[in-house]
């Protein structure tokens, strides 16, 4: 178990470093010189050379990358944006919690609805519940989040006035209002994953319930709840993997949903940065999301090894 965790963590660190390097080199090689962007087209060659020396841009890419990564690893110092001249870290500290909260709410919503739904439709296969959950799943997979978001803004918000059509209310202005401002975005973000996760739970449970140990458990006269618990432990393995991956993907979708609902999260930061050609901020945002994605995958491996120790032993 410990070896598995260690192995995963080490490999993930290597992955983050390698993937971050790709991003860094790609940005540096494609974006043109930042000096040109900051100083404008009128700047002389000498001014540009001076700018590069001042900001360490004349040094080898690997050295620049090392310095960047070292700053982040050492104290979450993402450096200073060359375009705006502001430190990147504090700017992201304001927007990251909003995105994080949106994704967590959506994920919690998806898991809380999907797993019971999957269990119910597996237990009562072919029943009304099963068919209803299949319809929910098909709808959830086929309706894109941004269209659903537009519809939510159009009807529950604008027409009926149940929710604010967009914008963000901070905690300090009241918990209820705060949650109300996040409810529709979280719903729009989570519906797709309800569909995926509930179907995976259902098929996982149905696969497992045919196995020998389940027959033995039934023959021994264990209670229904206990049998379900044993079945779930194995059935949830693929659900956890996919769930963790979904969690990582949700950050990508969250950008679109935030854009739609006008939430001041990372999407705002990323788009502003892209518009201003502020590549330092773009790199920081993408690196943060990549780390979240990788961490959620490690978490899945560890949860699975804990649910099912055989996986830990073979890895």
């Amino acid at each position, binding site marked *: 178990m410990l070896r598995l965790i260690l192995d995963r963590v080490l*490999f*993930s660190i290597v*992955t983050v470093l*390698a*993937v971050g390097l790709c*991003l860094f080199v*790609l*940005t540096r090689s*494609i*974006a043109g010189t930042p000096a040109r962007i900051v100083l404008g087209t009128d700047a002389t060659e000498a001014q540009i050379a001076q700018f590069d020396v001042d900001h360490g841009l004349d040094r080898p890419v690997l050295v620049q990358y090392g310095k960047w990564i070292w700053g982040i690893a050492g104290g979450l110092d993402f450096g200073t944006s060359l375009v705006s001249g502001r430190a990147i870290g504090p700017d992201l500290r304001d927007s990251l919690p909003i995105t994080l909260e949106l994704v967590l709410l959506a994920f919690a919503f998806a898991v809380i609805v999907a797993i019971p739904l999957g269990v119910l439709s597996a237990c009562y296969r072919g029943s009304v519940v099963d068919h209803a959950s299949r319809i929910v799943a098909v709808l959830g997979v*086929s309706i*894109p989040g*941004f*269209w659903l978001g*537009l519809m939510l803004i159009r009807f529950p918000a604008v027409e009926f006035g149940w929710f604010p059509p967009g914008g963000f209310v901070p905690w300090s202005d009241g918990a209820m209002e705060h949650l109300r401002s996040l409810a529709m975005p979280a719903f729009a973000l989570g519906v797709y994953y309800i569909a*995926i996760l509930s179907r*995976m739970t259902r098929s996982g449970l149905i696969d497992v319930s045919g196995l020998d140990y389940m027959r033995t458990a039934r023959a021994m006269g264990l209670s229904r709840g206990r049998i379900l618990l044993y079945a779930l432990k194995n059935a949830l*393995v*693929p659900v956890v*993997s*996919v769930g963790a*991956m*979904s969690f*990582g*993907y949700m*950050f*990508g*979708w969250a*950008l*679109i949903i935030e*854009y739609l609902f006008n939430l001041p999260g990372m999407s705002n930061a*990323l*788009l502003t*940065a*892209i518009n201003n050609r502020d*590549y330092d901020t*773009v790199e920081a*945002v*993408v690196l943060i*999301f*990549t780390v*979240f*994605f*990788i961490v959620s*995958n490690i978490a899945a491996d560890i949860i*699975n090894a804990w649910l*099912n120790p055989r*996986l830990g032993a073979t890895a």
Partner: protein
Amino acid sequence: MRRAPAWLAALAGQASCLVGGAIVVLVIGAAILAPLIAPHDPVAIDIENSLLPPGGDYLLGTDQGGRDLLSRIIWGARVSLMVSLLAVVIGMVFGVLLGLLAAHRRGGWVQHVIMRGMDMVASIPLLIWAIALVGIIGVQPVQVGPFTLGNEHKLLVLIGLLLSSAFSAIIVYAQELVPHRAGMIAGLFFGLAFGVSAVGAAGLGEIADHTGIEFIYKLCSILPAIGLLTVLLPNIERKKA
């Protein structure tokens, strides 16, 4: 005449399969026949008729510029289908080649290097990278050697390369599960992937043209790959377990 294979007959008997198949045929048909069936010019701007509701001369209404939405959807299906199809092909060529190589050199360092490398590619959050890279590279065509890459070409190369990790993983696991059938499984997955991407692309083209927001349009073109990954990856995880 040969009889249809049993699985095809079984599929044809299912209502959901028929409905799904009809949608796919409809979308692909619309894409192919776009110049014949689109009622208007998809890019003709007509400010006097902007933001019309559905009905009349414009079956689905018009956007801010007075462009006919139905025509834009029909023409948009072409771009979406092309991007997703070629991205899958690129991903498949790279992924299957690497996967076959890894499966062939099973247990050696070659497999290790390839699979770990592919794990790294798989740990890239596609959507964010795509947004950021499109933002960085810009929407102008790029010159790569003798080729000029337009916007959708850049996108499909990017998606294709990222997809390749899924394909090689599939091949390697396939090799372990059914040692002599890796080639056949590669073919099957290609078919599956094409089907999924076509359906995803159809929905996309529609929404992208519907919103008329250029930014959302850019994002949309990337979606089929994500749909693909979520469909493909669960199987890998389960086989690994």
